[in-house]
């Protein structure tokens, strides 16, 4: 399989050859940042369109139709609209925190986004604790949301922020536990290592029952972590008008929006890396011809395809389910998901130690 690290290491050597090493490192950082932010914003736009089309399809509507061919330019119109809107500053807000909050939310989502490998060697840095880093930086987002709700000095945003705090902190546990279950099966925390371990069989199939349970828990918890329906209580439109970002306007509101969609990509990406083999093609043992055809499809496409498929599931859930209530949401986590996840982790540990998983030697 093509390894992008050959290209990047060649670039690294060349840069070090023509300029001092500090300058080479700086240039690389700038290049990475430019590519990252470019990918970030382009993906966000694709995702917003994707959601609008999927939601239109589910609701028996046509979706965006007028701007550009089949409505494909609608998103540019939306982005320009939101960029040119006035940023309304309120009187009684805590100005510094009010402006800081959307950037914190975006920072958290960019950091997690930066950890995702898009293909073999197609990632910024391969930590040996990559998964751990993702869990750690994704928690910064809740701080931004809490600050947004608090600094707006409005009763609606405060309720939304408090709900959000309770929800995201609770569901982070379940996300962590289900990721830990997979780490237990793989025996490594490095994301590249995790994906490489799935070259013969994806973890979802390799770990059979405990992996499937972990996958379901991950889907539910990631939905909640992302504040998406049926867990969109922090911004519950019909109760709190817009929850924690009620008082934001213009691009500040746009940043929350952006982060929400990118987080959707991030959780879908993590699901595809951990359970669906990341950039690994689909291999069915015994069907060599089929496997060879699958190998022709580039890894990046596999990764994106899997992420988009996971996103479709998230959207399907969002547009079908009503919203849960705050006490039901907490009960679901603390009474069901977390105990089941913990038991599942123990089961997975037994499965691993006894070599009961598929492909065990």
């Amino acid at each position, binding site marked *: 399989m093509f390894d992008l690290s050959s290209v990047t290491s060649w670039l690294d050597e060349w840069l070090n050859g023509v300029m001092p090493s500090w300058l080479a490192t700086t240039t690389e950082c700038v290049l990475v940042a430019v590519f990252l932010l470019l990918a970030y914003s382009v993906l966000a736009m694709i995702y917003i369109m994707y959601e609008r089309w999927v939601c239109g399809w589910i*609701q028996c509507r046509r979706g965006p139709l007028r701007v550009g061919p089949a409505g494909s330019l609608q998103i540019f119109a939306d982005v320009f609209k939101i960029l040119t809107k006035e940023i309304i500053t309120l009187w009684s807000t805590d100005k510094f925190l009010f402006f800081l909050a959307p950037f914190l939310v975006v920072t958290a989502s960019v950091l997690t986004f930066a950890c995702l490998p898009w293909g073999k060697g197609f990632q910024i840095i391969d930590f040996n604790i990559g998964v751990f880093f993702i869990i750690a930086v994704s928690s910064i987002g809740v701080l931004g949301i809490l600050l947004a709700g608090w600094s707006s000095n409005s009763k609606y945003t405060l*309720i939304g922020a408090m709900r959000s705090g309770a929800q995201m902190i609770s569901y982070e546990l379940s996300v962590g536990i289900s990721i830990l279950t997979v780490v237990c099966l793989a025996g490594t925390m490095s994301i590249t290592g995790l994906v490489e371990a799935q070259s013969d069989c994806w973890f979802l199939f390799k770990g059979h029952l405990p992996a499937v349970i972990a996958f379901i828990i991950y889907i539910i918890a990631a939905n909640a972590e992302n504040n998406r329906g049926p867990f*969109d209580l922090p911004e519950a*439109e*019909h109760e709190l008008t817009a929850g924690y970002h009620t008082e934001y306007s213009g691009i500040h509101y746009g940043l929350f929006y952006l982060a929400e969609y990118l987080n959707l990509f991030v959780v879908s990406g993590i699901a595809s890396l951990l359970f669906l083999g990341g950039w690994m093609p689909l291999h069915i043992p015994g069907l060599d011809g089929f496997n060879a055809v699958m190998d022709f499809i580039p890894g990046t496409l596999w990764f994106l395809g899997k992420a988009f498929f996971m996103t479709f599931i998230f959207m399907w859930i969002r547009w079908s*389910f*009503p*919203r849960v*209530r*705050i006490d039901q949401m907490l009960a679901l986590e603390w009474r069901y998901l977390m105990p089941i996840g913990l038991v599942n982790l123990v089961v997975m540990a037994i499965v691993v130690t006894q070599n009961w998983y598929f492909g065990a030697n």
Partner: protein
Amino acid sequence: MADLKEQIGKLCAAATFDAEGEFLLVEVPDAQWHALAVALKSELHFDQLIALVGVDWGETLGVIYYMTNTATGDIIHVKVVAADRQQPRLHSVSDVWAVANYQEREAYDFFGIVFVGHPDMRRFFLRNDWVGHPLRKDYDASPEKNPIRLDDEVREDYTCSWVEDENGQVVKRVGKVFADDEYVINVGPQHPSTHGVMRYRVSLDGEIVRKVDVVSGYIHRGIEKMCESLTWPQTLLYTERMDYMAAHINRHCLCLCIEKALGLEVPRRAELIRLMMDELMRLSSHLLSYGCLTMDQGATTAFFYGFRDRELIYDIFDRTCGARMSMSYSTIGGVVADVHPDFVADVRHACDVIEKNMKEYHQLFTGNVIARNRMIGVGMLSKEQAIDYCITGPSGRASGVHCDVRKTHPYSLYDEFDFDEVVRTEGDSMARYMVRMDEMLQSIKILRQACDKLEQEGLQGEFCAKVPKMIKLPAGHWYQQVEASRGAFGVYIESDGDPKPFQKPYRMHFQSPCFNLIGVVDLTCRDNMIADLITITASIDFVIPDIDR
């Protein structure tokens, strides 16, 4: 009726009777009124106050109370006159019938009648700095008196009540609606889930709702006042602007009431068309209610499904009436034009499609575990409370009250049709939702029978009776109820028998079902969560223009 007269005579010696009209009229002096009200409820089981109509008779002011015995269906009305026009005072019966609480506030707002013993004597619709009481005949409507005010209401938090002290003197006591340390948030007037311009002030304890104060009147148009300056046929127009989801039904009601007063006979075919329009309207209203209820709980897709099917019904209205929202179709004596030639075929098609899609609605929403958890056991309303607060329509039937006017006091041709009154006993939000869903099937059943009948009568034919050019009602008052989409809709009309051309109503009162429905918002939402407040108000299902007439 003679029987009732005797029994009431025993309860109150000072009562005088008039059995001439459609219902028995009892007239009592204010001093005996409260005692009689208690006795009427406890001994003669007149347990539901269906309408409270304030009237200004020129020399005197007073109130007419319509009440019913929910077991037998008997209706009587009691007239109580305030002694002093300058300082009109009546005894409050809000402790006897809970529904009188808001009704008396409305009468105070428009007539300035102070109800002694009422716990919360604030204006209901108008601002507390409004000058005068608009429905009085001597009201000064000049704009200088009440300019458009751009400032906030002052002393909004204060309430007052008039009580009799031990010497029999009436004294005013001032109180506050919320305590100073309560966390009060405004839900509305601009809020996605109040279904219009409605405002609740909600006292919260964390996520728990402790008290709801309803602030209404943001879109009050003074329809009753406007009707007093229009001729009888012109007043029909306003009925469709109240509950726009029951436009045909409300208009049908006023037509029936005026026809009753005129003694006019409506052709059977016209009545059949009106009935079909009513049922189509009910179907469309319940579809909307399904859509709104699901959307308020976050299931946006179900909302679109509900709206998709309403289009079929609106297309039928469009083809026959030429309009989709305010159809202006019924008129005194019948309907304004004959139905479209494809009317029956369209109705049959719509019935088939909606019946088929109902299964999808149930699959998508009713069976959903989140939806069930959100609705079952939330917003309980017992049968006694429903009667006491005069909750009618689907919300009343969900609490086990047999209150379908089509069955209790059949009007139009409903007694010829085979359909069931959908009644459930749980009294929670789920029951209210399910009553609507089941009622849609009953409406389809009625519509199919009506299609057969209309085919027998002829697809084209007579649609309006011969009506005099000038409509003049004899002196008197009439009351007519119909089953609107959200409950019993009542019309009270009073004519002074003015012989001049272009006779105008002396007093016209619309007893809207939604006005009573908001009366239970506080009761049902207390100690539930914010999310439940939205579920409950959506399941009670009111339309704001119907409250703010």
